[in-house]
């Protein structure tokens, strides 16, 4: 028996820690009055301060402290009386001062946690720092080392970031995805960021290592970068765990390094390692005073925290009888959940569950397709409540309601007006529907006969056919529940 085979029998446990960078949605940058905007023309939101011109000095944006305090509150952090900024020194062309103003050993938020699927995940710290500019390397495969030349856009330089660093507390890619989803929902709910991974306003780096089950010492960690969705985070972790497991099982040593996730190939690449380890020569930023939030600032931040996602989900699952999954989808979108809550409050008939179904189905899709926010929709929350009521009262069918919804969103008016303008009404007159069923049975004796003699499969098929004919005969307006009942009676 070779040693490889012995090792192959060892069971490994995955250990994951996540570093999440979130761009804060303040109007202006961290240390100057330049607009904090995504998508402007390159190098238009810049000034001497965020360009780090000689002689310029930073002045801390108080709104950033307010947002940091909200994060502190929502993620159960301790916010000390005093925190300070440090300089992290290293050369990089998209960093105007060749140092990053960040926080180091005295961050604004220390030791917090977030609950994910009933388990508390510890968060070591969250700190404020400035973002860098954005480089585009032209030629040489898009890497700085081989590029012909590089273009730098400093619009992002000085944009405020919070870096939220978890403990190595997660044990699976699923848990890591849950952590990021929950974190994202919380940050959205408290209004501090738009947390869009695709646009880079939320960036997740994962530290992944493995160790034999039952041991407590951490294995050599590998940092993976460049995941642009929660799904790719999961894929990257799974790939990396497999890579590390195979490597370990074949006697290869895991090296501490940064690896780049390649979404199209579905693998991680080792990045060219820097010579030696970097020494950032941190020291306290002499141009900024310590951050000492007053009681008033703390109180204001606390007051700005709405009902957090976990509590909101629990409440709507209990009060509206919706599935946990649907509640999760709804609450992950604060604007939509506000919309749904307003609509439910306006319900006269029909169920809250129907409101949620419309919100997480057609309306969420509509919002994504059109890139629009609920408060801009032509269908108000009150109108949605009316639409749900029309279905609940049997005035229109569910399928008709979809057409009405589309008309409302297109600006054709209130649901009842759209329904009547389009001639959409459900026939629930039992006598009229009974006559339709009788006519269909009479016109299709073969099908009726086959239904009566056939096996279960044949029965199902023939019944479906007859129901279709009945619906056709009612011009699609027959109340389906009533037609079903009458058809069963006729076939009995």
């Amino acid at each position: 028996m070779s040693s490889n085979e012995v090792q192959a029998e060892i069971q490994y446990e995955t250990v994951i820690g996540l570093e999440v960078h979130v761009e804060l949605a303040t109007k202006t940058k961290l240390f100057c009055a330049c607009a904090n905007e995504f998508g402007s023309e390159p190098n238009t939101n810049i000034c001497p301060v965020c360009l780090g011109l000689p002689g310029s000095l930073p002045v801390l944006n108080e709104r950033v402290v307010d947002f940091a305090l909200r994060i502190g509150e929502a993620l159960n952090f301790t916010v000390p009386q005093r925190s300070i900024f440090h300089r992290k020194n290293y050369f990089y062309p998209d960093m105007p001062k060749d140092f990053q103003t960040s926080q180091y050993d005295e961050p604004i938020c220390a030791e917090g946690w977030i609950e994910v699927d009933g388990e508390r995940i510890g968060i070591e710290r969250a700190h404020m720092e400035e973002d860098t500019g954005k480089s585009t390397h032209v030629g040489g495969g898009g890497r700085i080392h081989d590029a012909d030349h590089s273009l730098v856009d400093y619009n992002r330089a000085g944009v405020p970031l919070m870096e939220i660093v978890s403990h190595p507390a997660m044990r699976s890619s699923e848990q890591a995805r849950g952590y990021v989803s929950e974190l994202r929902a919380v940050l959205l709910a408290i209004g501090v960021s738009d947390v869009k991974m695709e646009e880079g306003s939320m960036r997740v780096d994962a530290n992944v290592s493995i160790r034999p089950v039952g041991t407590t010492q951490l294995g050599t960690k590998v940092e993976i970068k460049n995941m642009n969705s929660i799904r790719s985070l999961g894929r990257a972790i799974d790939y990396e765990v497999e890579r590390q497991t195979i490597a370990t099982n074949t006697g290869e040593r895991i090296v501490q390094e940064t690896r780049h996730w390649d979404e199209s190939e579905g693998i991680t690449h080792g990045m060219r390692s820097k010579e030696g380890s970097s020494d950032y020569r941190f020291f306290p930023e002499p141009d900024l005073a310590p951050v000492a939030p007053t009681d008033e600032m703390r109180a204001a931040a606390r007051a700005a925290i709405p009902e957090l996602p976990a509590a909101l989900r629990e409440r709507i699952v209990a009060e509206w009888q919706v599935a946990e999954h649907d509640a999760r989808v709804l609450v992950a979108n604060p604007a939509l959940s506000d919309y749904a809550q307003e609509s439910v409050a306006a319900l006269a008939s029909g169920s809250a569950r129907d409101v949620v179904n419309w919100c997480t189905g057609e309306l969420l899709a509509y919002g994504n397709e059109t890139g629009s926010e609920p408060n801009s929709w032509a269908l108000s929350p009150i109108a949605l409540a009316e639409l749900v009521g029309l279905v609940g009262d049997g005035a229109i069918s569910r399928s008709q309601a979809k057409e009405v919804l589309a008309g409302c969103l297109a600006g054709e008016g209130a649901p009842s007006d759209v329904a009547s303008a389009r001639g959409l009404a459900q026939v629930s007159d039992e006598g009229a529907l009974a006559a339709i069923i009788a006519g269909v049975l009479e016109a299709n004796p073969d099908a009726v006969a086959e239904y009566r003699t056939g096996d279960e499969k044949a029965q199902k098929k023939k019944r479906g056919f007859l129901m279709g004919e009945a619906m056709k005969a009612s011009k699609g307006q027959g109340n389906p529940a009533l037609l079903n009942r009458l058809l069963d009676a006729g076939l009995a």
Partner: protein
Amino acid sequence: MRSAVEIAAAVRSGERTARSVAEEHLATIASREGEIHAFNHVTADAALAQADAVDAKVARGEDPGPLAGVPVALKDNLCTRGVPTTCSSRILDGWLPPYNATVVERVTAAGGVAVGKTNLDEFAMGSSTENSAFGPTLNPLDLSRVPGGSSGGSAAAVAARFAPLSLGSDTGGSIRQPASFCGVVGVKPTYGVVSRYGLIAFASSLDQIGPFAATVNDAALLLDVISGHDRMDSTSIAASPTALLNDGTDVAGLRVGLVTELTDVEGIDPEVRAAVERAASALEAQGAIVERISVPSCIYGLSAYYLIAPAEASSNLARYDGVRYGLRVDGDDVYEMNSATRDAGFGAEVKRRIMLGTYALSAGFYDAYYAQAQRVRTLIIRDFAAAYERFDVLLSPTTPTTAFKFGAKTEDPFSMYLSDICTIASNLAGHPAMSIPFGLGSDAMPIGVQVLAPALGESVMFRVARAIEAAGGVA
């Protein structure tokens, strides 16, 4: 030649035009600048335009401000919009700042007329202006001697009467030491009294802008104009001392401490010590109570300074990488371009300090060097606090010797560093201090007496300075 206070009064009253004042000073510059080299850049046309604007205000019956028509020379590490700002370094070659330093805005708004950018040791690192990439400034009182530094050009400009006022910056003595060498008044205000916005940083926690002038009251006039809170500088103090101009000369009953560690030690020229003792006696004669006082941690100031200042400088000067402005020397990739640019752009002293500072901040050395130096700094602040419980102001020489000859200290950086021994502690403590000319040495060069005061103690410091000035300083 009249003082800045007199010029401003004459221009405000319409007795003289700002243009005639500017022309007169530009003529003086034209006659002697060739041999002195106080300036990197003389802004003659802009000065005349500013002077005309002042005259136009007077003609309209408006008050052009307290510096009406007074020529002011600006150290070339203060950003001036559209005017070359070099720090006397090749690395800023071709850079034109898109903005004015706050002090430049304030001087101009007060009716001051900027006449040019003065020479300095590269990035304010040095004590003789010999480290300027554009050649040294010569001491107007003796062309074989240095004017001091780093603000040597600003001190020489006032001494040569190129301008009645100038601005310098003081990180470890860079205003007071050249003021002493050139026989003019030089003030380092309390840290935070003058906005640093637009001052190209050397060591951020130590740098402070201050005035040079021929008289104590002229220095007060300029400090009044440039001091005060600035929202662009987070270290700017909300409530700065104001109205230092004509703020009295009465020192009766004031307690004055003569700092033994800065006065009674080897290395201090006996003539210099004698001058300080005469100044002390003059104050006593005017009713002050003078005693010797020990501030023990003072002697560690130099060591702490040469860790903290280079550490901060190593970070502040990182941005000169050839990517965005100034000099660029091409290389095979961006990092080689960075290195080649910095190698060609920085002089030897700047490189030495970047190396020192980088080392002091490195992993494994941080606690022994940078952190230890900060502890010394705390100790100095504590010792000064104890001294100021017993004394209103402290007294010492500004420099151990009078102005030295060119080349005398260039071979031995440490001997050069020692010329800041008396001034450094005030920067570490963040306290105000100023140098007042008081008599001459046997070499016929001026001697400076330093008055030190507690934080925001500018008012009492200026009163004592006026009393010393009034005593004349002749043996």
